[in-house]
């Protein structure tokens, strides 16, 4: 069974950067363009993220990750290009409808902002094993109980989808209709999810008991099976990112 994850194990340099540095990178990628305003900073950060994604050899995997947002962005460009409240100047006409300069600029800013954030996150998500991320966070002070909850979700979802496939097949073979009018499909919903849901809720009791006997509620200082990776390069990355954010603030204050 595989845990839910988008992690691509390519073993590049980027993969060896510690998860906390990557989180800090996301913070910087969001923070710097907000402070500096305007297109350039956002575009520069986006360019940097894309470059890092290429270095990590995961650029192609970004596409499914941002697919849905891309669709929304296209509709944003169309709707704002046509109807943005500040629209004055026609930029071009397409089949009789007018696209306005103001609306297109407004939507372009949205696109840069969203893509910038998405790509920064993609860098974390595609190059970090979720369990490593969670463990790093727990070492940094996240409650181990929350750490448990996060790792447990990543295991429980593939299990539930597995059970779900079995149930769907069983219900179909018993003649339940899953296609047809909206009413038919709505009525199919509860019998389909009911058993998986009940099952997962009822097993929470035994799971809790199992955790209790394994000293889950213990207040002892938790230890880790895996060794902590500490390296100077990771410290340098963090310092550079913090410095960049400080520099952005300074720039904004001065100019």
């Amino acid at each position, binding site marked *: *069974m595989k*845990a839910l994850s988008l992690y691509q194990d390519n073993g590049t340099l980027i993969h060896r950067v510690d998860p906390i540095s990557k989180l800090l990178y996301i913070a910087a990628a969001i923070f710097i363009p907000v402070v500096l305003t305007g297109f350039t900073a956002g575009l520069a950060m986006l360019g940097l993220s894309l470059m890092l994604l290429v270095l990590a050899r995961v650029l192609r995997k970004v596409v499914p990750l941002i697919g849905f947002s891309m669709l929304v962005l296209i509709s944003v460009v169309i709707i704002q290009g046509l109807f943005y409240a500040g629209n004055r100047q026609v930029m071009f006409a397409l089949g009789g409808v007018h696209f306005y300069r103001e609306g297109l600029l407004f939507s372009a800013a949205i696109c840069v902002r969203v893509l910038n954030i998405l790509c920064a996150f993609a860098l974390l998500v595609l190059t970090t094993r979720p*369990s490593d991320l969670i463990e790093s966070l727990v070492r940094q002070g996240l409650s*181990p109980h929350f750490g*448990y909850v996060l*790792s*447990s979700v990543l*295991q*429980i979802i593939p*299990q539930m989808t597995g059970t779900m496939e079995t149930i769907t097949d069983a219900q179909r073979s018993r003649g339940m209709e899953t296609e047809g009018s909206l009413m038919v499909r709505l009525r199919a919903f509860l019998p389909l999810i009911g058993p998986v849901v009940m099952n997962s809720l009822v*097993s929470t009791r*035994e*799971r*809790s*008991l*199992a*955790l*209790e*006997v*394994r*000293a*889950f*509620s*213990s*207040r*002892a*200082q*938790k*230890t*880790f*099976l895996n*060794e902590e990776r500490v390296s100077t390069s990771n410290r340098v990355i963090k310092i550079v990112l913090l410095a960049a954010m400080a520099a952005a603030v300074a720039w904004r204050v001065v100019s």
Partner: protein
Amino acid sequence: MKKIVVEGLKYRYPLTAELALNDVSFEIEKGEFIGIIGRNLAGKSTLCQALMGLVPHFYKGAYGGSVTVDGLNVAQTEICELARKVGLVFQNPFTQVSGSKMTVYEELAFGLENLGVPRAEMMPRIESAMALLGIERFGKRNPFDLSGGQMQRMAIASVIAMAPDIIVLDEPTSQLDPQGSEEVFQAIQALSRQGMTVIMVEHKMEKIARYSDRVMLLDHGRLVDFDTPERVFSRDDLAQYGIAAPIFARICQGLGIRTPQTGLYPMTLDDAYDQVVNWHE
């Protein structure tokens, strides 16, 4: 040295009317191997959970009497504190997985991480527990990809790695074939010989007769008998409690063969063989 002292223990689960445990009292010495038998719903699992504090801390409900483990009064001690002394392996191996670890090796580490065992100490403990239960090969597997029997071995190993003084096993071989059950019993016996106190619920009477020092018979939440396997299995009212004595004892009973010194039926194949040979001479 008394490891466990139970006095007048009574317990009722929430929302139920009947007592699951009714006035149970007994004492267990350090290093003993205790077998618990009784028909379905007799209260065996409830008693196991009372030794670990899950009854009453986890379930709440109504509780009376006292359970003392290694000098600690269970009703006043937290479960995580008791988890340092008592290990509990549940009946169902499928729901005993922590559900947050990707490999069997990490799964075994889960309890040790929670207890704060230093990393250097963790690995030898995990490895020896895996070796004892014969699951070294599966170290890198995902816990959910194991068969029922392998999962059961992993569940036992996870508890053994925590190095408890007392291990309580609730039907630990239900998913194992005869060969596998025998291996697990041997492993547990090895721990018992090293001084670990073992308490095991089991339906396989032949195994109970062979491995336990004493057998506890429960029925309807009451302690019916607590004595050597020979005495308990020589009772003539066993059927009334839904128990069938080990096959060798039944054969000897049918033939009227008793061990002359005690007047009780032989329990194991070897004893039975000796007595049958004597009887023919």
